[in-house]
């Protein structure tokens, strides 16, 4: 399954040691914009993206990203469950929640479920890139 939905990007621009990033969001427009913008960052390589739970879990198991960026607010209510399952993977990726608006219970629940950070969807992609690329690698 490796490589099925992987977006082709200009690998020539990437550093050899760029972090592999996977993006989860139900909104196709948001996914496309994130892939485009974050793919431009020298220290990140976007290896895939998806919205559907089964698809993203399969691709992440296969692609072994270093970082997963995900929106926890979902119509199917599975946001926190996806977080938990990712955190339980062997050599789990760093998990960055990126969400539309904050609620304190959701932030607490996300951190408990294994998120490394809880970020808001502000249009400030440089800050976003800096934050997720510098997430400390978990033990």
């Amino acid at each position, binding site marked *: 399954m490796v490589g099925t939905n992987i977006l082709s990007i200009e690998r020539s621009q990437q550093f050899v040691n760029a972090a592999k990033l996977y993006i989860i969001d139900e*909104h196709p427009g948001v996914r496309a914009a994130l892939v485009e913008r974050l793919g431009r960052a020298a220290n990140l390589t976007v290896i895939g993206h998806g919205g559907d739970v089964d698809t993203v879990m399969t691709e992440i198991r296969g692609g072994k990203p270093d970082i997963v960026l995900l929106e926890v607010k979902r119509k199917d209510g599975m946001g926190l469950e996806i977080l938990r399952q990712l955190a339980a993977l062997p050599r789990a990726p760093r998990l960055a929640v990126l969400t539309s608006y904050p609620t304190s219970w959701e932030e607490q629940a996300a951190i408990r479920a294994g998120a490394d950070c809880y970020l808001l969807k502000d249009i400030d992609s440089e800050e976003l890139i800096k934050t997720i690329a510098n997430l400390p690698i978990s033990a």
Partner: protein
Amino acid sequence: MVTRENQIKPPATGDAKAYSDLRSDMVALHRATLSLFSDLSLEGVLRRVIHAARELSDARYAALGIPDNEGGLETFITLGLARDEIDHIDHQPRGDGLIGEMMRTGQSIRVPEINDHPLSVGFPAGHPPMRSFLGVPIAAYGRPLGQIYLTDKLNADEFSLEDQRLIEMLAAHAAAAIENARLYQKVLENENELSDRNEELGLMYSLATAVSSAMDLDKLLEVMLQRVMKLFHAGAGEIFLLEEQEGVYQKAIHLGDAPQSFWDVDRFRLGEGLIGMVAQEASPRWTTDLNSDSDYLRKSVLQSGFKTLVGVPLTAPGKVTGVLTLAFRTERVIQEQEQGLLGAVGAGVGIAVENARLYRQARRVAVLEERERIGMDLHDGVIQSIFATGLTLEYARLDVQERAPEAADRIGKAISGLNKSIRDIRSYILDLQPSRISTDDLPKALERLTREFKANTLIETDLMIEPEAVRRLNGSIAADLFHISQEALANIAKHAKATRTWITVRETSEGTVTLQVIDNGQGFEMESAPELLGHGLSNMGERARLFGGELAVVSSPGEGTTITVRIPSEPVN
């Protein structure tokens, strides 16, 4: 009409005088007997017996003894002795001598000289001298109830056989009167017990109704505790409730004349102190030894004279939701039957508390769900699109930066605008959080709302709030009223085509505060209201229903619309 049978026959050998004496004796006896039954207290009956006996027998002294069950006398009443004469007597009769003999045989004793009787033990020291004696037992169905003692027959050396017969007849009536008084006593006790039972039933009933009502938890606790304290005649009481963090019990209410609290702390863990022990064992505990059994107990509680403390678990299926304590100034022993009642009270209050808690939770969930729904809508429909557009713009800016710096600048401004939109929508979502408005804030919040409404719609808006009415409102419904006003104004903006609106919050009658939102717009046919107003109207109705109020909408085409919310409020104190 007097028949022959009703008359007393003259003695066959007697003369007219004897007949007349007997007749007057019988009349006196009859009168005395009637008087016995006019008093229902045992003490009163005994007094009347002894008076009648002395009068009927012409004795100087009369006395009445009630035997205890150990061969002695439980009660001894005298008549004819002066106060200081009684004081000089060494001790009451002990039930030996002639008195003992009467108890043993159940027969009357009549002697001209007490001291000559072979069984006499003589008088106690200091007793005035007495000579002639007539003793008659009072018995019912062979059971000794008491004895009548008469001494020193006036105008004769000794009591006659007639005297003895007369007093024996009096004794038979006295037995009936004493039994009667005792029965009456019992009935009274039963009645008291019955009214206690009624009070118990009343309490259980009020618990049951509280369980099914959606009463505010604090109010509920107060009413329950008051009733339980009254039923057990407790001087003070407290209720501790299980925190959401399991295993911790927090003080919720304290009533009564004790200091502010019985304890040095307001929280107890399972197994800690009396509260924690009752919760752990889920069974009542009491202590009358507060001095030594007083972990965490305040010194001031002992100083203010409390002696007994009872702890009752408040139970709901599967858990102890709280502990109720009662404090007594007496050394109160809990009867077996009261233990059962305590258990029932604990279960009743426990279920009521659990119910109120679930109700509050359900309410919170309902509001949360609505907020969540709106939040999700905005997340889905608005923030996501803006965010995606913004990211695309950022990408474009990077591209054009080198070639057309001015274009990059314009794109930068567009991005700032989008960011501001996202922040506005976020704060709108967070503003849906209802707990942020209290009654103190309500007037201000409504003022802000009407100001914004006026600015956005150019509809003239008047706001009139009675501060007194707002003070009467329960704090938790301020947010609901705000949201109902918000929905109503939103409806007006969308549908009414109004030029004026009026919002009022007034106390319209004792215990009722009314919120009205009125507009002079186009109105609508009431029959088509559901389709016209849709979700907004049912939301408003639902909110009103949740806090125990009611919402009414009145409208007709061309006549504007009036939305009225009636809210139960706190009484004037």
